[in-house]
């Protein structure tokens, strides 16, 4: 299952990436949907080096300061620190790794984390309950500056019961908190001793208990990792070493992959995934619900009037945008949940209806509220094209005016605090709706970009968070979908596609959480 791991991941997703492609075939080796040739895999063999392209570079290797998703530092974090748990991206079922269990007996008010016995960091210190407590408390501390602070702050306190047992008390019941842990950097535990040495020292020599250790980090160029011979889950990892390079540019990434310059590319762009699939490169994609959306700021005019939001949503046509931005590739997010989700229902979030849109624009103009707004967008090719596509589409209508303003990353972060925007691109990607859906649309959430604050929606989101049975959650999320369709806080542009494209001889691709790629299962057929 997939959830949120901080607005950073979603901001990064919206900023640097495009949407995604979901292949239909179910998949051999990986968790997620896959396409391409994976049939000849056979038994994993050890040895070799994989060259991996990732979508960004972490600013630090401190687990609290990066992100656990396909667009951030997921792969590097999994390699250095291993994972407490993972999940199956199709069923959402939690799979325990360095943790043996994470259980609640009281509907999510408290949890007990049980670790494997004998886990050790590569500096020889124990990976025990005290180490987990140190990492989790540190992530929760505002002074750390972790992008996972929202998820960590759901914990009221942590208490070491014994060497392998940690008791977690929640601020409020969160029955599915395991999903929040595994899809964020809470899933990574670093050596407290190494963290205490300070950030520069830690970045030079990060210490975890993962399948790989850092050999060399040349910033903005490459991260070289070597196999950890003491990894708990021998004979994994299969590969002797990994060379990870950032490749932010969409074209550059697919060119490097198809010219043989990489063995694995972590991918997010519809066009690239289609091109890779067409040329026979196997791809695996995590089937996320939600997606990228154009958030309309309900805190101020013109979008404080729901008619304005409905009018723009009705005027928008995803197929037109898909053609102009992604050459016709991509998948619409017309419903909140993917069909594979247990919470899926056929409630359309928005539907194109040009006549209705014009009628609403005219009505608003007659009321002295003409719809005029500025779309603030990231400078990436995709995001600019997206904004310009909406601008072009709305230019056909009367009584509506759209301006496009390009803002950079830092400016965008400031907008999250000031809310000084009419419209901007945000994202809410998840498999399990906890906790991203809550943070994206609850009235009291800081991450609620649209600012909608609806009593029924808030209650349903809270119910979905605290409910323990699937039936109760289903009912709650049905209400959430109905309220979102009624309130139109944003226009969903399309599903995100956390993917991995591999060379034809690369196997063992497994994604978990929010498209986070596991390195220990990768192997190369000789």
């Amino acid at each position, binding site marked *: 299952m997939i959830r949120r791991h*901080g*607005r*950073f991941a979603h*901001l990064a997703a919206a900023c640097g990436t495009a949407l995604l492609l979901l292949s239909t075939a179910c998949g051999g080796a990986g968790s997620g949907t896959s396409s391409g040739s994976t049939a000849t895999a056979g038994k994993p063999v050890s040895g070799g080096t994989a060259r991996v392209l990732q979508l960004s570079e972490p*600013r*630090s290797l401190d687990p609290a300061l990066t992100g656990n998703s396909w667009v951030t530092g997921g792969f590097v974090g999994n390699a250095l620190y291993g994972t407490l748990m993972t999940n199956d991206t199709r069923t959402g079922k939690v799979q325990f790794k360095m943790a043996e269990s994470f259980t609640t007996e009281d509907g999510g008010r408290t949890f007990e984390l049980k670790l494997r016995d004998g886990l050790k960091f590569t500096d020889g210190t124990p990976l025990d309950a005290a180490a987990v407590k140190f990492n989790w408390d540190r992530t929760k501390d*505002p*002074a750390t*500056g*972790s*992008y996972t*602070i*929202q998820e960590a702050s759901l914990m009221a306190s942590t208490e070491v019961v014994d060497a392998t047992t940690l008791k977690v008390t929640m601020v409020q019941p969160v029955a599915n908190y395991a999903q929040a842990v595994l899809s964020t950097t809470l899933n990574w535990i670093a050596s407290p001793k190494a963290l205490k040495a300070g*950030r*520069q020292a830690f*970045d030079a020599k990060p210490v975890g208990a993962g399948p790989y250790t850092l050999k060399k980090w*040349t*910033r*903005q*160029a*490459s991260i070289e990792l070597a196999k950890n011979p003491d990894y708990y889950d021998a004979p994994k990892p299969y590969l002797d070493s990994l060379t990870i*390079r*950032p*490749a932010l*540019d969409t*074209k*550059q990434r697919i*060119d*490097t992959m*198809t*010219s*043989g*310059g990489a063995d694995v590319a972590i991918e997010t762009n519809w066009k690239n995934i289609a091109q890779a699939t067409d040329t026979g490169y196997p791809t695996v994609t995590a089937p996320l619900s939600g997606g990228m959306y154009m958030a309309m700021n309900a805190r101020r005019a013109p979008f404080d009037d729901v008619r304005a939001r409905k009018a723009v949503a009705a005027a928008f046509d995803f197929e037109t945008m898909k053609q102009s931005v992604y050459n016709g590739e991509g998948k619409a997010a017309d419903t909140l949940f993917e069909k594979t989700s247990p919470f899926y229902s056929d409630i359309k979030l928005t539907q194109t209806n040009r006549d209705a849109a014009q009628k609403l624009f005219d009505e608003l103009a007659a009321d002295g509220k003409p719809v005029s707004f500025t779309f603030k967008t990231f400078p990436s090719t995709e995001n600019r094209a997206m904004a310009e596509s909406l601008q072009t589409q709305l230019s056909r209508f009367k009584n509506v005016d759209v301006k496009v303003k390009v*803002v*950079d*990353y*830092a*400016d*965008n*972060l*400031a907008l*999250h*605090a000031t809310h000084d925007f009419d419209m901007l691109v945000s994202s809410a990607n998840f498999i399990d709706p906890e906790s991203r859906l809550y943070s994206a649309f609850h009235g009291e959430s*800081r*991450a609620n970009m649209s600012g909608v604050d609806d009593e029924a929606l808030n209650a349903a989101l809270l119910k979905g968070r605290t409910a323990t049975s699937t039936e109760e959650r289903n009912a709650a999320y049905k209400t959430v979908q109905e309220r979102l369709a009624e309130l139109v806080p944003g226009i969903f542009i399309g599903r995100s596609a956390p993917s991995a494209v591999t060379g034809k001889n690369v196997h063992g691709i497994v994604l978990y959480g929010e498209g986070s790629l596991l390195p220990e299962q990768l192997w190369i057929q000789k």
Partner: protein
Amino acid sequence: MVLPVVRRVGRSLLVVLLVTMGVTLLLSLAPGSVAEVVLGPDATPETVGAMETQLGLDQPLWGQYWDWLTAAAQGDLGNSPVTGQSVSTAIVERLPVTLQLAAMALVLALAVAVLLAVASAVRPGSPVDRLINAVSSVFLSVPAFIAGPVLIYFFALQLGWFPVTGWSPASEGIGANLRGAVLPTVAIALTEIAAFHRLLRTDLIGTLGEDFVGAARAKGVSGTYVMFRHALRPSSFSLITLAGINLGRLIGGTVIVETLFTLPGLGQLLASAITSRDVVTVQGIVVFIAVVYVMVNMLVDLSYGLIDPRVRKAAKA
């Protein structure tokens, strides 16, 4: 002799000061702060405010600048609040890549431009000259962000001679290093070749019309000898000046190529520091580039005397 050098150094220091002040001022006008980047979108205004206080960003602008300047004057360029890395270390790590690219591009551009300019100047207006001018115009009108992808398409994707992206340090093998450097070098060098060729061609044509060249020819000296011994050296003043200026510019200006080919140079570092409002890193890089730029230009001035004995004589007189 000493006074002019002192004056020049003084002027250079003033240039560096003005450049760093300008950068500080410009970045202060941009929305967003480094504290927001470091703490992320979930940070509360209180934690952002606390970090801004910790970084001294709550002080008046001149106070922030003065603190930075006094530390920089003692060789401390500070630490990046984004990466936690020392700015001096970051510059030292990135410099070899940028320096190698700039130097290779400059050498390549000079070598090609000199040959083309000589070929053009032998018979101005001839078909060869017109062809070279046409090619030069094409080079001049193709910026690196166009040339890069075109080069990648033909030489990396179609022919597979070079990698699409990536950098291998020279310490890990000169072959792999050069293989990764060729396409970026060519992408940078194309416009330089055109600019150098046009300048040198014009100067050469002028020099070849001088009396001393006519006298040499009248003595029966060969055309090649006249071109390379008598005409080329006095024609290369403007070229050397431009090459010096461009070397300084390239050290800070290869950002597009570095981004396009994913090269860990100063340009990429500067670009990422600007977008994350990392003023400390930006100031450190800018002051470094400004110092290099000024020094290169001083060296260029000094080199005139080495190239042309008339300058040495004038200086002695």
